[in-house]
């Protein structure tokens, strides 16, 4: 099976700043990958490039062999760090909206998760707290049967109790041919679910390895290794 994501000399510059510098990266299907790095290291830039919200300055990016566009967007499910749902919509409207545009969206799954998290589908988005909005967005994104999930800080705004449920949701809601990229600072929380990690620093990838390899070779947890590598 072809790689789900391929970056070749991928570079993104913002006037004077190089946010991503000559990144070569190949991600296979069926993995949960932690994209880890300090603030401003280029995590969000990479995810935005995958989703076509930014255009590369140089190099190439292929999703399932295709450049970002209408076809790639059909198979990528993206959770941005922003609250991006129109605030006048009811939760049920947002579900209708996703169902309208994404063929792989499973309405029943979305309603099951809402129920499990005790969220009222008749509520308007603007009446929800920031953490609750994030839960709704994550439910929408995970209710798709996508090939690649890009989750940018998926648990940043929610309480620890909901974090566990959300991480369980993430693991149990994806199939074996799908890959999940999770970008986060909260490494200890996600460490147990990750298969692979990518360390990114100043727009360059400094480490791409399986979690098992790191544990065997380095004899330490990802969280400890991260703190050492990115020590201020």
């Amino acid at each position, binding site marked *: 099976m072809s790689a789900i994501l391929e970056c070749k000399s991928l570079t993104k510059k913002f006037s004077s700043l190089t946010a991503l510098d000559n990144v070569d990266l190949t991600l296979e299907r069926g993995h949960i990958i932690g994209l880890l790095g300090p603030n401003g290291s280029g995590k969000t830039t990479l995810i935005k490039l995958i989703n076509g919200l930014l255009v590369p300055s140089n190099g190439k990016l292929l999703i399932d062999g295709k450049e970002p566009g209408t076809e790639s*967007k059909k198979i990528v499910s993206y959770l941005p760090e922003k609250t991006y749902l129109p605030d006048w919509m009811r939760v049920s409207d947002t579900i209708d909206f996703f169902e309208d545009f994404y063929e792989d969206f499973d309405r029943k799954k979305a309603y099951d998760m809402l129920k499990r998290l005790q969220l009222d589908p008749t509520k308007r988005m603007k009446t929800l707290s920031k953490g609750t909005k994030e839960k709704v967005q994550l439910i929408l994104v995970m209710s798709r049967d996508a090939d690649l999930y890009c989750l940018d800080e998926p648990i940043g705004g929610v309480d620890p109790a909901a974090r566990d449920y959300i991480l369980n949701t993430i693991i149990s809601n994806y199939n074996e041919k799908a890959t999940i990229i999770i970008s986060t600072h909260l490494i200890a929380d996600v460490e147990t679910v990750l298969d692979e990690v990518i360390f990114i620093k100043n727009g360059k990838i400094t480490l791409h390895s399986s979690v098992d390899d790191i544990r065997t070779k380095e004899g330490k947890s990802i969280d400890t290794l991260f703190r050492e590598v990115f020590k201020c």
Partner: protein
Amino acid sequence: MLSKLFKHEMRACARLLLPIFLILILLALLDRIVLGLDIFDGSLKVIPVFITVAFIFANIAVGFVTFILIIVRFYKNLISDEGYLMFTLPVKASQLIHSKLIASIIWLLSSVAVIFGSLSFTFGTLDGASEFWDGVKTSWVQFTQEYGNDARMFFAEIILIIFIGIVCSILQIYASVAIGQLVNGHKILGAFGAYVALYTIMQIACTIALVIAGLAFKGNYDDLGMVTAIVMPVTALFTLIFTVIFYFITVILFNRKLNLE
């Protein structure tokens, strides 16, 4: 996908505009009733005047709000955080623009229809209104008798220019927003700047073209003939050219230079 985008766009605008249209219709009804009552004496005569003035302002406000809504919708839905949702849908950037453009034209024309309808409903049957319409009719007859086909051509061209002008103004705003989003941290200011720049370029180009066209055909037509044969077609053509330019600026920038913060 275009039809789905269009459906959602119409719905998002209807939520705000339909209640406003409804209020205007109710005000029209109220004003007509008040104007029909003959019970205001002395200083109370100020009441129908006051209500009529408020009603006329409400009409202006409806037109204004529709136009502002078109701008705000485009900006908020595509360039603010909601842009993360819209630009990751499996649709082309051009489809996003088409859906918004078609919906905007429909809502603008509806607001014109509602305003015209409410005004003629309120004032249409009053004493003096029929004289006004007779006056319009007589002038039209005189105008067509004097200028013949030129007069009909004149009005056909005016309607055409107004329509192209509406589409052009909407796309000019879209292009300005698309240019403005390139400016990190000052997207709205950037859009204003872009609008002024585009407006200035358009005015200069149109003036030059009219002067050239005018000089080239000088003396070959009587006055209205010159207007219908040169001035208005040149204006229409120029507006059309700029409409196309604004469209491509918007599509190309969204495709190649999208810059959401």
